[in-house]
């Protein structure tokens, strides 16, 4: 149907013209992309910051301000760009007093990587909250790690001494024990293991109580720069 008549060779565009047209297209496309990027950037950054803030506030009750901290050159400092594996968030109350850390951690779950954030009060040696950021666990089973309020409540008062352990549902008897979810033992154990790994990673790296980095300027609202991408 679409018999294409080959153009005579004399009419073939030169390779400079080809390169030029590709370059031109690239340029226009670049401009369009930068345009949309600039246009949406504020909303996107705000969204991300809000999500992160909400998560941090959720795992650290009583916190209303936060800043991103990274472990650089042997000490914990406020950072703008996250440090791989060694980034956490400091949580402060309205008056700028330090309350606790929100620590992100991730690891393999039943199906795929589970990423979570948990709240850690170093002074009391207590975990006070846990929020799943990302997971692909089975709907109806593994997704109970964030849908099952009873399970999530396990993490509102936990003393990881020395580690948290998972026990069969209904047998929780010590402050370092977590009731597993029936039918999703693997996922529940994975959550616990991921927190334990987070604890292990930060052991010895957090400053002594009282020495935590303070908010740079209590008056200024802190902005945690979310990672790009």
């Amino acid at each position, binding site marked *: 149907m679409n018999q294409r008549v080959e153009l005579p060779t004399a009419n073939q565009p030169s390779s400079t013209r080809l390169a030029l047209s590709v370059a031109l297209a690239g340029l226009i496309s670049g401009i*369009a992309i930068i345009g949309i990027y600039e246009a949406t950037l504020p909303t996107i950054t705000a969204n991300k910051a809000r999500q992160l803030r909400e998560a941090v506030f959720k795992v650290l009750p009583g916190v209303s301000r936060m800043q991103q901290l990274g472990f650089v050159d042997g000490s914990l400092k406020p950072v703008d760009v996250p440090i791989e594996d060694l980034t956490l968030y400091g949580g402060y109350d309205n008056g700028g007093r330090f309350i606790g850390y929100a620590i992100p951690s991730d690891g393999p779950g039943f199906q795929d990587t589970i990423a979570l954030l948990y709240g850690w009060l170093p002074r009391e040696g207590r975990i006070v909250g846990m929020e799943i950021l990302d997971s692909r666990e089975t709907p109806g089973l593994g997704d109970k790690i964030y849908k099952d309020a009873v399970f999530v409540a396990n993490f509102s008062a936990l003393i990881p001494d020395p580690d948290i352990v998972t026990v069969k549902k209904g047998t929780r008897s010590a402050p370092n024990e977590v009731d597993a979810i029936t039918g999703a033992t693997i996922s529940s154990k994975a959550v616990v293991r991921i927190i334990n790994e987070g604890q292990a990673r930060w052991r010895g790296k957090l400053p002594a109580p009282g020495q935590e980095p303070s908010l740079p300027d209590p008056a200024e609202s802190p902005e945690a720069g979310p990672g790009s991408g």
Partner: protein
Amino acid sequence: MDMDKNLDTYQEFVKGIWRDNPVFVQVLGMCPMLAVTNSAVNALVMGGATLFVLMGSSFLVAALKQWIPKQVRISLYIIIIATFVTVADYSLLAMLPGVHKELGAFIPLIVANCMILGRQEAFASRHGIRFAVMDAAGMSLGFVLALFSLGSIREILGNGSLFNIPLFGETFEPWVIMILPPGGFITLGLILLFFNWVAARKKAFLEQVAQAERESL
């Protein structure tokens, strides 16, 4: 273009929806389709993004076809498509962050959707703007229709809901597998089976009619 003379706008529009449905009939663009159709909302958003990209790039390609050198046309199509995809990606991220999180990596993958590139090569680059856009609209609607039917079947059975509205009450036992990857493959396989069956029935019926006519002569 002169070949446009024997085209009919309406025909170009509807063919993509049923007769040449890109998914059910041509079996194109499967990957994004199966990956995100575990709920009706995801399916619609993905379909919408695809519609935007396909219509936009078809329009541009048809409009610019005189200036597009044949030798580098594929690269240029891809640049055009990628631009639209990036636009869609950032807009969704800004407007629907929740859905964007679930669709995850699959929005950028629209670039690789062979259906879109295929339409540029096979249609938009050879026809006028009006038909190119009609064709793109039909194809994308067909695509949306396919995504939506798959997504809603999977959501209804797999979660007992449609658009997150529970349909069957508390005690409904969800068919978890429908939301999991095997459910995607199997449901689409069964839908294709159904399409084949309808086609076979139609053919048999037409043959019967022809037979009857021949006999009555």
